[in-house]
């Protein structure tokens, strides 16, 4: 489509209205429809994207009722008082007793309020980011979320940027790559240091295995006298978000961290931009891409429902609720 490309089409042009309608007509994602989806998505790229305030506000108000990130995204001293018997998200029969030591790690209140940030970038780790040159555009956002300690070293910076306000850490990484922080701690600290002033966000109360290693992250930062904030996802927030998306047809053992961050961003930001979210083995033009922008290690099958999540994002993009970037950026 680049061959006939002479500048983006206006959002409200007839052509764009048609292209958007075509995407919305695809209601279910099946393998046969996937090529169709790719085609229509590709075609839509000639249209400018605009936020549809009405749609976006409607969506955000739904989220505020189900999930309420500005009050419940993290465990805080306000929403999780000392002595709380906190229920785990997955190990539902297990509770964690909030003792003084853990309570002291919580922020007094949620550090962010509703629609605090004008423009947010949520950066997934998809191979679609490779050679995207989107680093500049990502870094120009007011607030940047990243998932799972992704590499942001020099060789990736042009594609993914460096700015990070929140980075999530999956405790399984701590267990596997850093021996639960029971031995050396500096290698882990050195990794965190790269994300300059970013806060670290962990699912400490997702299951019982996660708690100790997550808490230990706070201690590691204390060991090195780092002022970095450590936050823990509130398990009830995770439950509510999963339930919400399940109702929207995302059927997976577990929603991805990316989807959770996007959901939170929609409440905390006016405008949400997604980069690196493309859960298919090939890009919209049909060219195979690596799984991540930094490696090609495939995830456990049947755990996440990436295509279904992306399908939702595409619909949201089409409705003007958020913007999904899958093309290369030409940010100047």
């Amino acid at each position, binding site marked *: 489509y680049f061959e006939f490309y002479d500048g983006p089409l206006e959002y409200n042009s007839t052509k764009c209205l048609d292209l958007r309608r075509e995407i919305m007509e695809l209601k279910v994602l099946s393998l046969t429809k996937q090529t169709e989806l790719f085609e229509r998505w590709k075609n839509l790229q000639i249209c400018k994207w605009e936020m549809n305030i009405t749609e976006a506000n409607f969506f955000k108000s739904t989220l505020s009722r189900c999930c309420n990130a500005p009050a419940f995204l993290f465990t805080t001293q306000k929403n999780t008082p000392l002595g709380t018997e906190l229920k785990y998200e997955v190990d539902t029969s297990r509770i964690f007793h909030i003792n003084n030591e853990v309570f002291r790690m919580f922020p007094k209140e949620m550090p962010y309020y509703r629609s605090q940030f004008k423009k947010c970038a949520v950066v997934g780790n998809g191979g679609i980011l490779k050679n995207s040159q989107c680093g500049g555009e990502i870094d120009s956002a007011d607030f940047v979320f990243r998932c799972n300690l992704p590499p942001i070293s020099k060789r990736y910076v042009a594609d993914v940027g460096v700015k990070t306000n929140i980075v999530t850490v999956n405790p399984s990484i701590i267990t596997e790559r850093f021996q639960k922080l*029971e*031995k*050396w*701690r*500096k290698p882990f*600290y050195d990794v965190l240091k790269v994300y300059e002033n970013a806060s670290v966000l962990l699912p400490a109360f997702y299951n019982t295995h996660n708690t100790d290693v997550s*808490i*230990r992250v706070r*201690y590691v930062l*204390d*060991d*090195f*006298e780092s002022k970095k904030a450590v936050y823990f996802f509130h398990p009830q927030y995770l439950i509510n978000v999963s339930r919400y998306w399940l109702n929207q047809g995302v059927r997976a053992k577990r929603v991805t961290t990316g989807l959770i961050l996007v959901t939170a961003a929609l409440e905390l930001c006016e405008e949400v931009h997604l980069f690196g979210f493309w859960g298919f083995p090939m890009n919209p033009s049909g060219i195979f891409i690596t799984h991540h922008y930094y490696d090609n290690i495939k995830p456990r099958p049947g755990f996440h429902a990436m295509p279904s999540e992306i399908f939702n994002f595409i619909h949201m993009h089409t409705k003007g609720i958020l913007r999904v970037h899958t093309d290369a950026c030409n940010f100047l």
Partner: protein
Amino acid sequence: MTKENSPVGKRVWYDGEFLYYLTIDNETFSLFPKAIPFQLPLKRCSVVGNGGILKNSRCGKQIDQADFVMRCNLPPLSNAYSNDVGSKTQLVTANPSIIKKRFQNLLWSRKAFVDNVKVYNQSYIYMPAFSMKTGTEPSLRVYYTLTDVGAKQTVIFANPNFLREIGKFWKSKGIHGKRLSTGLFLVSAALGLCEEVTIYGFWPFSMDLHGRYISHHYYDNVLPDSGFHAMPEEFLQLWFLHKRGVLRMQLERCEDS
């Protein structure tokens, strides 16, 4: 333990366990210094026990005058004590049990420990990592902790073969406790490393030579579990060594000179 005496693949038999060994792997090997890190022989050594007899002894200056000062079990060295016990340390032992009791095995915050050992400046922290099964992980963790933060102290590990031989030697001299005290291990090591050894704070009785009651340690009066160490028997042997002039035992207060 050194790279020279404990190569990868070697079986290390624990001296405090019955038939238990660890095979040195690459990871553990990498924690050992190449060879014994001291300039041997050491000249004048002070070995400082923690006995209450040191309280008000004013021996600090004399202790510090030695070329090499050895202390037991991470003793407190704050200003309040320096007059009596000095402040210089080249080697201090640390028992894994202390790491467990006082620092939660270094599994959580490690800052308290790092701050705690700052008083020992550039000394070696000598740990019996391979005596009891349960002591290995905490001991290695001391190494990780101090190396991670770039602390001035260097962690070295006791060779269980050495400890076992020392134990056998003293057993043959009639010491029958379950295990020798750290103090006696340290004095024995000092006799092998130093030209001249003076020992302080070795006095396992509740009264001093003049019949004044003294506390168990110079810093507290927490009594040990009974029947673990045979302190009076150990003391007797040290006393014999003093009388034969093998080492010098300081029991009186030190004079300011």
